[in-house]
C-alpha cells in the first residue's frame, strides 16, 4: 500500500489547568483500535503543571505524542485548537478536550468512513456521560441513526443547527487548511461558528451511527464549565455575537433556508437555555437580557415562529412584548412541560394562553392553544401550577400559602375542595409523608390554599439516603384527587429565621436541620444539613459522606433493594410466578375473569354476558380487569389491575376467562379453565394468519402465535362470513366455533324490534347526559385507526373541519365523535354542544342506540350498527391507501357497503344534506348486508352463553 509516512490521523488534545484528567484523555487515543494515530497536545498556558504532564506523556510515547504550549493564555478552546491544526501531521484531524475521551473504535470508524466516501467531514455520535453516576445520554441521536453521506449541508440543515459541537468530527486536514478554517479566539461558543463554517465549506459530509466521543459532564464540583454558566449575561452576549456572525455568512451566501432553520433552532434551543434561568435571576439581568434578545430576535422571520411548539412560540412572543406577568408562568411550563401554569382564556370558541394581546391577529395565532386540549382533558389528569405566596418557618415546622391555577374556570365554585401537603424524598422508591387538612378556597381564576406542617414531629428522614425532599400540594376536587403539584417558588420570599430541626433516624451526626431551597426546576424543596452543636459540619460534610465509602455502601444497598423490587415486579418474574406458583393453586369454581379491550373498557360482549349473568341471578365470583383506572367498572365485582399480582392470581385460579381480544399472550391457560373468546368484530381487513405481518413470520413465531390462539375453548361468531374469514385466519378448530352471535349486539336487535313493533325510537339515557336537545338528529362518527409505516398507531387527524361541520349542520345535527380507543381527538370549544367527543365513553352500544345515523370508514362498527337498520355513510377519504398499501381486505367495501361510500368531505356533506333520501335508497342493501354479515345476531346471544355455561346442566 502506498502511504506517505506519518500517521493517518491526528488527535488534537487541548488542555487548560487539567493535569489530573489529561493522561486519561491521551490514553483513550493511544488505546485506539486504529494504531496509526498521533496525539498533539496543546496547553493553553496552564498554571497547574498540565504542560509538564503533557511533556512527560510525549517523552513516554515519543513516536506518538507531541506537546505544545501557547505563549500566553487564550482564554478559550479556539486558540489551542488552531495551534493544533497547524501542527498535525495526519491526513485527518480530530479534536479532543482534556476532560473527555474517545470511544475505542472512533478513529478507525472515522478513517474507514472518510476513505470510503472521500468526505471532508465525518461526524459521529457523542455520549454525554455523568462523571458522578456514569450514566450517559446520546447527543442528538436522531441525526445518527444510519450512515449517510451528503454533498452539502443544505441536504440536512438540522446538522448545522443542532449538533454544533466540533469534537465528534473528523476533518480532512487539507480541507481545513485549504479553506482557512480556524476557530474564533476570545469568544465563547466558538464551536458554533467553527462547525457552521466547516459544514458550509465541506463538499461531502458523512454521518456514522457509531459512538465516537464521550463528553464527560461533571456537575458535582465547584468548577462549572462555560456551557453550564449560561446564566451570566456575558454568555448570552457571546452567543448572540456568534449567531450574528453565522447570520452574516448565511447572508453573504444567500442561504435563506439555512437561516430559517437556524432561527428556528435559536428560538427553540438557544433562547430556551437562557429563558429557563430567568425566573432565578434579578430584574437587572432580565432587563439586559431582554434588550439583547429582543434586538436579535427582531430579525427573525414569522416563518421561524410557525415551526415551533406552542410553548416555545408563546415564550418568544411574550419576551418580545416584554409581558413579564405572562412570561414568567409560561417559562414555568417551558421548564415543566406537563404543567399548565396559567388559567387560560376562551374567546370566540378558541382557547388562548392569556387574555392580553388578543386584538392582534398574529398574537392570536401564537397564543392559540386550543389544539392542546386543555379545555377537554379531565381535571384529574392535569398538572396545575401551584404557586407559593408565603413561606414561614415556625420552629416546629412550616406555614405555607399560595395559589393554584383554575383552568378556564373548570373548577366550579360549588366544587368540594380538599388539599393536603405531601413531602417525599427525591430519591425514587422511598416513602413520603402527608400532612392533611390544608385550607383551600375558590377565588375565580385560581384557588388559594394555606397549610401548616409540623415537620419536626412527623418527619423522620433516614438522614443519609434521603438528603433532598420535595413538597407537593395534593388537591382533590369533588373527591377525585388531581396530580400532586410541586410548588413554584417564583418571587415569594422564604422566611427562614427559625431553623427547621429534624431528627434523622440514622444519626444526627450527618444532619439535624432542614434547609429550604429552590430546585433546578423552580420548586420548593428541602435539603438536610448539619448545623447543630452536635456536629458543625457544612453541607459539604453530607456531600462527602454521600460520596465516601459509607454513603456508597448505603446507596448500593438501596439500589439493590430497589433492584430486587424491580425484579420482582418485572414482566418476566410475573410470568414465572403465574406459572410456577399461582397455577399450582386450585381452580376456584364459579370464578369468572372478564376483560374488554385489554382492560381499557367495561364494555362489549364480556360486559353483556356479565350483565346477563347478574340479571339471571347466576351465583358466581365476578372479577373484572382494568388497565388504568377502576372508575366506571362495576362496583359489585372484584376489580384487578391488569398485570398486577392479584390479576395473575385470578386468571390462574379462574374457572372461566371471558374477553374480546386476548389475555396476556405469555400466560398459559390451564386445562381446567374455560376460555370464552367473544372477539370484537367481524373483519373487513385481513386478520391473523391472513395478514402479511403474520404470514411473513418464521415457523417458531407462528407457532407461538398459534399457541396463544389455541387457548380459546370457544370463539363467538356472528355470521358465516366470520366462519369463512376469522376462523381460518386464526386456524381455529370447528368445535371451538360458537354460532351464537355477539352478546353486545343483543341490545341493538331488541331496539330494532321495539321500534318495528311501534314503540318508536327510544333514546337511551346517554342522550340526556350529553345534554343533546330532543329535536336534534344525532350522528355518530366512528372512524378506525390507521397504522404508521412502522406498524404503530398513527395520530388521529380528523379529516373534516369540525367548525365547518358545526356551522353547516349544527342547527340540525349533533355529531358524536368517537375516535378509535387507541386514538384521541381534541374539539375546539366553538363547536360545544354541536360536536361532542364520546371517545372516553366505555361502551359503544348506547351510542349506537342514540345515533340516528352513522358515519364510519372501515371500522367493524359497520357490522354492528347495520343491525339497527339506520342510515350509514362510509367516509373513505383514504380508501386506496388504506386498503391496498397495507394488508388487503376480505371483500370489496365499495361493492358491499350498506350505504354510500364517499371519498371527500363534499361527498359526505351532500349525503348529510338529505339523509332521509339516502336512508330509503339504501334500504335493500342494508338488509342484504345484515343477512350476509350478521345472520346469527338474533338478540339472544348473552342468554345462549349464560344458559350453556352458567346454568345447571350447562356444558363447558
Amino acid at each position: 500500500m502506498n502511504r506517505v509516512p506519518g500517521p493517518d490521523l491526528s488527535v488534537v488534545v487541548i488542555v487548560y489547568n487539567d493535569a489530573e484528567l489529561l493522561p486519561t484523555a491521551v490514553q483513550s487515543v493511544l488505546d485506539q483500535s486504529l494504531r496509526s494515530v498521533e496525539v498533539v497536545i496543546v496547553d493553553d498556558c496552564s498554571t497547574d503543571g498540565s504542560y509538564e504532564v503533557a511533556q512527560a506523556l510525549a517523552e513516554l510515547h515519543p513516536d506518538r505524542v507531541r506537546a505544545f504550549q501557547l505563549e500566553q493564555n487564550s482564554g478559550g478552546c479556539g486558540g489551542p485548537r488552531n495551534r493544533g491544526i497547524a501542527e498535525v501531521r495526519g491526513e485527518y484531524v480530530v479534536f479532543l478536550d482534556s476532560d473527555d475521551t474517545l470511544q475505542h473504535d472512533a478513529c478507525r470508524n472515522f478513517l474507514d468512513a472518510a476513505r470510503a466516501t472521500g468526505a471532508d467531514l465525518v461526524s459521529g455520535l457523542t455520549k454525554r456521560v455523568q462523571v458522578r453516576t456514569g450514566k450517559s445520554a446520546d447527543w442528538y441521536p436522531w441525526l445518527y441513526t444510519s450512515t449517510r453521506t451528503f454533498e452539502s449541508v443544505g441536504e440536512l440543515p438540522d446538522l448545522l443547527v443542532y449538533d454544533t459541537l466540533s469534537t465528534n468530527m473528523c476533518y480532512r486536514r487539507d480541507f481545513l487548511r485549504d479553506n482557512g478554517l480556524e476557530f474564533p479566539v476570545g469568544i465563547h461558543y466558538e464551536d458554533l461558528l467553527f462547525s457552521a463554517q466547516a459544514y458550509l465549506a465541506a463538499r461531502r459530509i458523512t454521518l456514522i451511527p457509531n459512538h465516537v466521543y464521550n463528553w464527560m459532564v461533571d456537575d458535582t464540583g465547584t468548577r462549572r464549565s462555560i456551557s453550564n454558566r449560561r446564566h451570566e449575561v456575558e454568555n448570552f452576549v457571546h452567543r448572540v455575537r456568534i449567531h450574528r456572525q453565522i447570520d452574516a455568512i448565511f447572508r453573504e451566501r444567500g442561504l435563506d433556508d439555512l437561516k430559517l432553520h437556524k432561527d428556528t433552532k435559536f428560538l427553540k434551543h438557544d433562547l430556551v437555555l437562557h429563558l429557563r434561568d430567568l425566573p432565578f435571576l434579578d430584574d437587572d439581568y432580565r432587563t439586559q437580557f431582554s434588550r439583547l434578545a429582543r434586538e436579535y430576535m427582531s430579525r427573525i422571520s414569522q416563518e421561524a415562529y410557525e415551526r415551533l411548539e406552542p410553548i416555545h412560540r408563546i415564550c418568544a412572543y411574550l419576551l418580545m412584548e416584554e409581558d413579564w406577568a405572562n412570561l414568567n408562568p409560561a417559562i414555568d411550563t417551558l421548564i415543566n412541560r406537563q404543567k399548565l401554569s396559567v388559567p387560560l382564556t376562551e374567546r370566540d370558541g378558541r382557547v388562548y394562553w392569556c387574555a392580553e394581546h388578543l386584538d392582534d391577529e398574529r398574537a392570536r395565532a401564537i397564543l392559540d392553544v386550543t389544539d392542546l386540549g386543555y379545555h377537554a382533558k379531565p381535571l384529574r389528569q392535569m398538572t396545575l401550577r401551584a404557586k407559593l405566596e408565603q413561606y414561614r418557618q415556625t420552629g416546629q415546622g412550616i406555614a405555607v400559602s399560595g395559589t393554584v391555577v383554575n383552568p378556564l374556570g373548570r373548577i366550579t365554585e360549588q366544587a368540594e375542595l380538599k388539599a393536603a401537603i405531601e413531602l417525599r424524598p427525591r430519591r425514587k422508591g422511598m416513602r413520603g409523608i402527608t400532612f392533611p387538612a390544608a385550607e383551600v378556597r375558590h377565588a375565580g381564576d385560581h384557588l388559594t390554599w394555606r397549610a401548616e406542617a409540623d415537620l419536626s414531629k412527623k418527619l423522620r428522614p433516614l438522614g443519609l439516603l434521603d438528603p433532598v425532599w420535595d413538597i407537593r400540594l395534593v388537591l382533590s376536587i369533588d373527591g377525585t384527587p388531581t396530580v400532586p403539584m410541586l410548588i413554584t417558588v417564583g418571587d415569594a420570599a422564604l422566611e427562614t429565621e427559625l431553623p427547621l430541626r429534624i431528627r434523622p433516624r440514622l444519626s444526627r451526626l450527618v444532619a439535624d436541620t432542614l434547609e429550604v431551597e429552590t430546585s433546578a426546576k423552580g420548586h420548593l424543596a428541602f435539603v438536610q444539613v448539619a448545623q447543630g452543636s452536635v456536629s458543625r459540619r457544612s453541607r459539604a460534610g453530607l456531600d462527602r459522606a454521600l460520596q465516601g465509602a459509607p454513603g456508597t455502601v448505603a446507596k448500593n444497598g438501596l439500589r439493590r433493594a430497589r433492584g430486587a423490587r424491580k425484579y420482582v415486579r418485572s414482566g418476566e418474574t410475573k410470568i414465572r410466578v403465574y406459572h410456577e406458583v399461582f397455577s399450582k393453586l386450585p381452580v376456584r369454581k364459579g370464578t369468572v375473569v372478564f376483560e374488554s379491550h385489554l382492560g381499557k373498557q367495561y364494555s362489549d360482549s364480556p360486559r353483556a354476558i356479565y350483565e346477563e349473568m347478574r340479571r339471571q341471578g347466576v351465583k358466581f365470583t365476578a372479577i373484572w380487569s382494568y388497565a388504568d383506572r377502576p372508575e366506571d367498572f362495576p362496583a359489585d365485582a372484584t376489580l384487578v389491575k391488569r398485570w398486577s399480582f392479584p390479576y395473575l392470581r385470578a386468571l390462574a385460579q379462574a374457572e372461566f376467562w371471558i374477553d374480546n381480544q386476548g389475555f396476556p399472550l405469555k400466560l398459559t391457560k390451564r386445562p381446567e379453565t374455560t376460555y370464552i373468546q367473544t372477539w370484537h368484530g367481524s373483519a373487513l381487513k385481513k386478520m391473523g394468519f391472513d395478514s402479511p405481518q403474520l404470514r411473513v413470520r418464521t415457523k417458531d413465531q407462528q407457532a407461538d402465535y398459534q399457541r396463544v390462539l389455541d387457548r380459546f375453548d370457544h370463539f363467538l361468531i356472528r355470521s358465516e362470513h366470520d366462519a369463512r374469514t376469522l376462523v381460518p385466519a386464526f386456524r381455529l378448530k370447528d368445535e371451538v366455533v360458537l354460532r351464537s352471535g355477539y352478546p353486545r349486539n343483543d341490545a341493538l336487535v331488541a331496539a330494532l324490534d321495539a321500534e318495528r313493533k311501534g314503540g318508536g325510537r327510544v333514546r337511551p339515557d346517554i342522550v340526556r347526559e350529553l345534554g343533546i336537545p330532543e329535536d336534534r338528529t344525532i350522528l355518530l362518527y366512528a372512524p378506525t385507526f390507521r397504522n404508521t409505516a412502522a406498524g404503530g398507531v398513527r395520530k388521529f387527524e380528523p379529516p373534516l373541519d369540525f367548525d365547518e361541520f358545526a356551522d353547516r349542520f349544527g342547527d340540525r345535527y349533533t355529531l358524536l365523535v368517537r375516535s378509535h380507543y387507541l386514538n384521541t381527538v381534541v374539539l375546539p370549544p366553538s363547536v360545544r354542544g354541536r360536536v361532542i367527543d364520546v371517545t372516553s365513553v366505555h361502551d359503544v352500544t348506547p351510542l349506537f342506540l342514540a345515533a340516528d345515523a352513522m358515519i364510519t370508514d372501515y371500522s367493524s362498527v359497520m357490522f354492528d350498527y347495520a343491525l339497527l337498520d339506520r342510515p350509514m355513510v362510509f367516509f373513505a377519504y383514504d380508501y386506496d391507501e388504506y386498503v391496498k398499501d397495507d394488508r388487503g381486505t376480505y371483500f370489496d367495501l365499495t361493492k358491499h357497503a350498506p350505504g354510500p361510500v364517499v371519498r371527500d368531505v363534499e361527498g359526505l356533506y351532500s349525503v348529510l344534506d338529505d339523509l332521509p333520501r339516502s336512508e330509503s335508497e339504501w334500504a335493500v342493501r342494508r338488509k342484504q348486508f345484515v343477512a350476509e354479515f350478521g345472520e346469527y345476531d338474533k338478540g339472544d346471544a348473552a342468554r345462549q352463553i349464560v344458559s350453556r355455561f352458567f346454568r345447571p346442566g350447562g356444558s363447558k
Partner: protein
Amino acid sequence: MSRDIFIVSNSVDELGGVTTWSHQMARLFTERGHRVHMIGITPSTVSHRSAGELPYETTTLYDTHPPQAWSPKTLGDLANMSARMRQARRRAGMREQAAKLTALFRAARPGGVLIVTQVWAMEWVNLADTGDLTVIGMSHESFAAARASSRFARVKRHYKDVDRFLTLTREDADLWARQGMNNVGFMPNALPWVPGTTSPRSEKAVATVARLSQEKGIDMLLDAWAVAVAEHPGWTLRIYGAGEDEQVLKQQAARLELDGSVEWMGRTDDVPGALRSASVFALPSRAEGFPLTLLEAMVSALPCVAFDVAPGVREIIADEEDGFLAAPGNIWAFAEKLGILMGDAHLRDTMGERAAVAIQRYTTEKIVARWEELFDFLEL
C-alpha cells in the same frame, strides 16, 4: 502480500450457505497466493464433502458433536447435578479444543488473519490465544434475523472485542452499531459463479430455487402465483428444490388448482441451466441474509421479484430498476409485481440486462480485493 488466513466455522463439511461461502472464499484466497487453513469445530452429522481434493488444509476439532450448552434458569436447575456436571465436562472439553486452536494460530506468520464465520465457533476462538492475528467475526444473516434468535445476545458478547465484526450490508452494520457494536463493518458475499451464457428469457417460465421449508416462503409464492397466473395464462412456475414441506406445498398447490401451471422440479445440480430456461426469478423468503440465489439469478440476466425482508435483499435488487421488491408477506403486491413482468417482455429484457450489469459489483475479483484492503486497513 501473502498471508496466513484461518477460516473458522461451525463445521467444514456441512450443507449450508455459510460452509459454501467459506469454501468459496478459501479457494479464492488460495488462488491469490494466501495460505488458507479451514477449521471446523465439529464434524457435520451427515458429511457432504470430501476434504481430500481441496487446495487448502482443513481441520475439525471434535470427533463427535460436543454436548449442548446449558445454564441453570430456575432454582430446580441449580440442583440438577447431572446437567451441571455435563456442563463442566463441556467446558473442560472446550478448553482442550481451544488449546489445539492456539497451537495452530501460533504457527502463523506475521500478518495473519483469522476469520470466524459463525458466532458459535467464536466461543472456542475466545478461549484460544489468537496472538497477533487480526480477528474478524462474521454474521451471515440480517440484523433482524439475529435479533429474533439467541444469536443476538451471543454476537454482542462473543464478538465484542474482535478487530472487526462484519455484517453483510451497511444497513445491518448501522443497526449493530446502534447496539453498541462499534467495531462493526460490512462485507457483501461474492457471486458464486458467472454463467457462460445468460438467459434469453424466451420461455414463459418463472423460476425459484430454494429448500422447501417454511423459511423460504414457497407457500406465499404459491398464493401469489394463483393470483398472477390467473391474469397471465400460459405461464409456468418452476420450483427447484426439495425439503420437509414438499407434501404440504403440493397439497396447497392442488387446493389452489395450480397443478397445470406449477412444475415441481426437485433438487437440481444444474442451477445455471435452470435459470437459463426461465424468464423471471422469484424469491419469496421470510428471512434472508445476502441471498446467493438472487445473485445467481441476476448474473443470469433474470429480473427478480422478492419480499423485502432484509437489507441484503434491497441491497442486491434496485427496486423498479433491475427487479421488484414487495412488502414482506404481502402476497398481493408480490403477485402484482410478478404480473407486471409476466405481461411485459420488453420490461423483462430491460430489467434482466440491467440486473446482469449491476450485479458485476459482486464479482469474486472485486470482493477478494475488498477483503485484502480490509486486511491492510486493520493493520493500520
